[in-house]
């Protein structure tokens, strides 16, 4: 009971960077933590502990090396949880996923996050602007409440 109330009043985002270029990663940190956009004022926090997270934000294409770790992190987050794929890379694998022409797909990269874990929200952009991230988070919070 107490746990439910407290979780509803503070949304924790766990940011996992699975091998993109860092652009998306920094824009998320910028949107949440930096005093300019400051999502923390809406009680949205960043965390690196899966057990206290509500939303898993993944940036970058999933590399093969990261697959296991990402699954484990996803498993460790308590229900209800949401997954947001942030940036073109996290949605489709971006420029890295496809070698193009006869070369086919990359040896190092699986592709978008959806190939590994179920995704609830896609935020496109390379990288998405912090405003977009703010808007996206604002729009998924009701989803989280609904899941509860």
């Amino acid at each position, binding site marked *: 009971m107490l746990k439910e109330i407290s979780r509803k009043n503070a949304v924790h985002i766990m940011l*996992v*960077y*699975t*091998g*993109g*270029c*860092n*652009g*998306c*990663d*920094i*824009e998320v*940190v*910028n949107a949440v*933590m*930096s*005093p*300019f956009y400051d999502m923390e004022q809406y009680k949205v926090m960043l*965390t*690196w502990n899966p057990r206290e997270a509500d939303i898993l934000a993944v940036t*970058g*294409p999933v*590399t093969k*090396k*990261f697959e296991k*770790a990402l699954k484990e*992190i996803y498993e460790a987050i308590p229900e209800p949880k949401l997954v947001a794929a942030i940036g073109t890379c996290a949605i489709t694998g*971006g*420029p*890295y996923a496809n*070698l*193009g*022409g006869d*070369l086919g797909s*990359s*040896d*190092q*990269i699986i592709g978008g996050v959806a190939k590994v874990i179920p995704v609830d929200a896609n935020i496109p952009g*390379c*990288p998405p*602007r912090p405003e977009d991230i703010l808007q996206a988070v604002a729009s998924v919070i009701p989803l989280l409440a609904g899941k509860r």
Partner: protein
Amino acid sequence: MADTDRKERAEVEVPLGIVHSALLEPFRTRLFVDDEMVVDAEITYDTAHRGIERIMEGMPVQKGLILTERICGICSHIHIWNGTRMVERGLGIEVPQRAHYIRVIGAELERLHSHLLFFGHAFEILGHETFSMRAFMIREPVQNMLFVLSGNRVHYTIPVLGGIRPRCDIDKQKKQTLLSMLATLEESLIQFRDRTLNDSLIVSRVRDIGYLSKEDAVKYGALGPNMRASGIAYDWRMDVSEYRDNFDFEIAVSDGGMVVDRVAVRVAECIESISIIRQALETLPDEEPVNVSFELGPMEYQVSYNEAARGEIYDSCALDDNGRILSYQNRTPTMSSLSAMEVACIGDHLTDATITIASCDPCLTCTNRMTVIDEARGREYILEPEELRRLARRRG
């Protein structure tokens, strides 16, 4: 660095990563700790390997150069600039002076935002939220300046073969906007410098830790500000003609080799960058920013160096008859700077080790590399220090 004895003697091993709040990026640090003191450290990074050099093979060169920008979201401009310079030199393409100036402005803005991100990150690790937030707050106008200059906050794609993209050209109004933004930025940066470097709390926390001697800096190949903080006065900007011939600037050096020196060098560099940007804006030559009359063709193997925010960046490539990339190679500074940090943590208190590692400003997106293709066994892996040693032992 790899002394098996010391590792075995260590009481406790403290693994950090691959996902850890103090590291932000996926790399794994193993600290071997004896009574709270770090006796050995080992850093592995291999999770973010994307095989960009491989993807670029066979691509038309213009497309490949845009992809170089996606190597890193912090120092994106320097990758595409260095690649473009290299191809321009190889094919003998003339570049208008105005384009050089605007490219330099892009690179210096990038250095500013990269260093400010470093301060934000480093002070966050120290637990000094106020200064960390301050750094992020100062960084925001820099991002806005990049936005004004190019229309994007992160991947700005300013250079194109023969000059710069017309959307990044600086007209009268843009110049005024940028100059006034620059003045405000300079004011807040100078305040930030005076407060940070005189703040007893911050200084007491970063002084006397993470010592990297000049010899070790050379031996392990620390680069950029890390090298300059250990007393080696070299900066590629002294040799890159775009900088050397057009602007006056000084190279920040410090002899201490401690974490505090690495911070101080970067603070000084920020102030220098502002002066370079101002010089470039004020003396911007009046001409067409891009030369479109050139032919793509075969290019011999070329190399190019430049100074990224974190140190030396090296690119090399060759083109075939149709202007497609035959092979592309890119080497970035973090790899060797990070291995220097393995040495610098030794002898520190455990709690100081993360700030020491962070003080080389690691950026892992470009560093994941050295894939070994073992065709006989049909597998591919990234060479880690452990394996390197194993291979070495097998040889011996």
